[in-house]
């Protein structure tokens, strides 16, 4: 019998590497095509031809890709400090003087901390202020302090506010100039850093207020927004190998919702599933359900969404698997529904 040491084992070579939570985590798949900081570059491009555009942030320029704009247009960039009420109040004041502000912070702070300022100073006077919220839904491994799982639910009740949940770098690049040109206020759920490029593979352009069919299908209808459209497309591919024909309709504009397109898609008899990176309360699922019920096309609609509770901290792949947002969980869900 050999002597055992009381000392703890400090060697790591034999231990499996743990998955860890991170505030800034990419949801891009390994090897996936991505574009760096699409929001920052799109804002710079728009500002080159539109002198009204200014950028503001609340001590999160580097983490919302606003630093790209700040570097290109230092005189048109305004650091407001870690003061979200000031960020949005000042953005309103700048818009009152004829400028077109893009104001960035994290989605949790825009929605929870500075709601009153967005509501009364920006939305009520219907000003062209574009609020850009990073880390929407479950895109950070930090817990509920940073996970904006209910931002759309909070904002959908606000009159005048346009809500955009982009899928990828294509959506963001095309949405930014349209938001600048559109007169009222908007809330853009920001995907930042190296953002997947997905929609260039499809016959698709972003149009404010429009949902678009990305692929047709006779058995199942996916209606999705945000990064879940990427997952929906992946799941549709995998389901094709199971001989299940899945249509994917992408609705990056959550409000005003494209009722006509969605109603048209709900008409054929298919299994209908909504997919969103957001709590199942008050988001895309309820927007689709509301349209269906209001127009008498009542039928079963299944949500793939985050649960109505505060979520765990952890690594994004772990959490997406745990809460059903991963591609494999989507495939399982469809197979079990059709079983």
């Amino acid at each position, binding site marked *: 019998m050999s002597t055992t040491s009381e000392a703890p084992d400090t060697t790591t070579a034999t231990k499996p590497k743990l998955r860890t939570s991170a505030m800034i985590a990419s949801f891009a798949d390994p090897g996936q095509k991505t574009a760096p900081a699409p929001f920052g570059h799109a804002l710079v491009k728009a500002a080159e031809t539109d002198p009204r555009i200014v950028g503001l942030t609340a001590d999160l320029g580097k983490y919302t890709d606003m630093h790209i704009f700040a570097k290109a247009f230092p005189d048109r960039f305004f650091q407001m400090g870690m*003061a979200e*009420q*000031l960020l949005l*109040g000042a*953005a309103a*004041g*700048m818009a009152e003087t004829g400028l077109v502000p893009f104001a960035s912070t994290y989605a949790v702070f825009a929605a929870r901390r500075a709601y009153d300022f967005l509501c009364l*100073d920006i939305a009520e*006077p219907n000003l062209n202020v574009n609020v850009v919220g990073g880390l929407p839904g479950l895109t950070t491994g930090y817990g509920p302090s940073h996970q904006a799982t209910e931002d759309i639910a909070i904002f959908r009740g606000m009159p005048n506010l346009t809500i955009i949940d982009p899928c990828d770098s294509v959506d963001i690049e095309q949405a930014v100039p349209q938001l600048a040109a559109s007169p009222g206020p908007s809330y853009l759920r920001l995907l930042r850093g190296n953002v997947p490029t997905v929609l260039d593979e499809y016959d698709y352009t972003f149009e404010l207020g429009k949902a678009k069919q990305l692929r047709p299908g006779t058995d199942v209808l996916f209606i999705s927004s945000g990064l879940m459209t990427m997952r929906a497309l992946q799941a549709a591919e995998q389901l094709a190998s199971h001989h299940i024909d899945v249509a994917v309709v992408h609705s990056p504009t959550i409000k005003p919702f494209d009722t006509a397109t969605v109603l048209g898609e709900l008409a054929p008899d298919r299994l209908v599933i909504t997919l969103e990176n957001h709590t199942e309360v008050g988001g895309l699922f309820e927007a689709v359900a509301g349209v269906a019920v209001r127009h008498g096309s009542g039928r079963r609609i299944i949500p793939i969404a985050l649960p109505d509770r505060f979520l765990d901290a952890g690594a994004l792949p772990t959490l997406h698997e745990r809460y059903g947002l991963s591609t494999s969980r989507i495939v399982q869900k469809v197979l079990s529904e059709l079983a």
Partner: protein
Amino acid sequence: MTLTPETTVAPSPDFTARVADVERSAYRARHFALNMGEVQGQGYVGQALGSADIFASVYRDQLRFRPEDPHWADRDRFLLSTGHYAIGHYAALAEAGIVPVTELDTYGSDDSRLPMSGMASYTPGMEISGGSLGHGLTVAVGMALGMRLQGSSARIFNFLSDGELDEGSTWEAAMGAHHHQLGNLTALVDMNALQADGATETVLGIEPAEEKWASFGWYTQRVDGNSAQALLAALDNIADRTGTTGEPSVILCDTKVGRGVPLLEQREKAHFMRIEEHEWQICRDQLTAGYDGKASV
């Protein structure tokens, strides 16, 4: 920096005339406020009377605007953060020729352009929709930044109340204005020592207010907010500095709720002052007697 306006030097004839002009405008505005209050049978008359000298000093003596074109791009901006002071603001807008005097009778009525709480979408000359307190100064910071960026020399005035110093957002804006060196921004704080639940110092103490503002990097003056002379002297001090310094300015204006009407000045202080039907004429008579008495001295 804290200072009291210089009063030892004899005022110039021109300054004396400006003071008299502002006093007369404030007197007329107080009558307007009483008339509006009587139509409604209620209203924030106490605040309107207390702050009339501040409104008159700015609108009559300082603000650059075009009555026939309230949206003139290069105008100075006056932001009413305390939406419930709208009654006083409407009186000032009538004095400024932006709102017709005859329209004041509609105050607070259905479909009126003069709602009880000030809203930009309703009233010409109303720059923002106040009322959710602590917003005004944040919006003023943005306007000051926006006007400066676009090369305008327009000045931004934000009227707020001592109660709004409870709001953290006011201090976010105070820091931001200093950080961005907004010398084109002036805050006017009505220090009437009263808020919804009682005396300001019993609700949430805000003193020493001068030291707070000064430590936030603002050029700070504290004056008798019911003295046109003191207000104009303070505003002159700010105007003299405008363009030479990046420091934003604040005037802490100590005012008396119900000022000009002894019946209301002596009434128990209340955020929403009750005035009986038969008292309105007494109020008007007292206001006139006080003004005439002062004018005849």
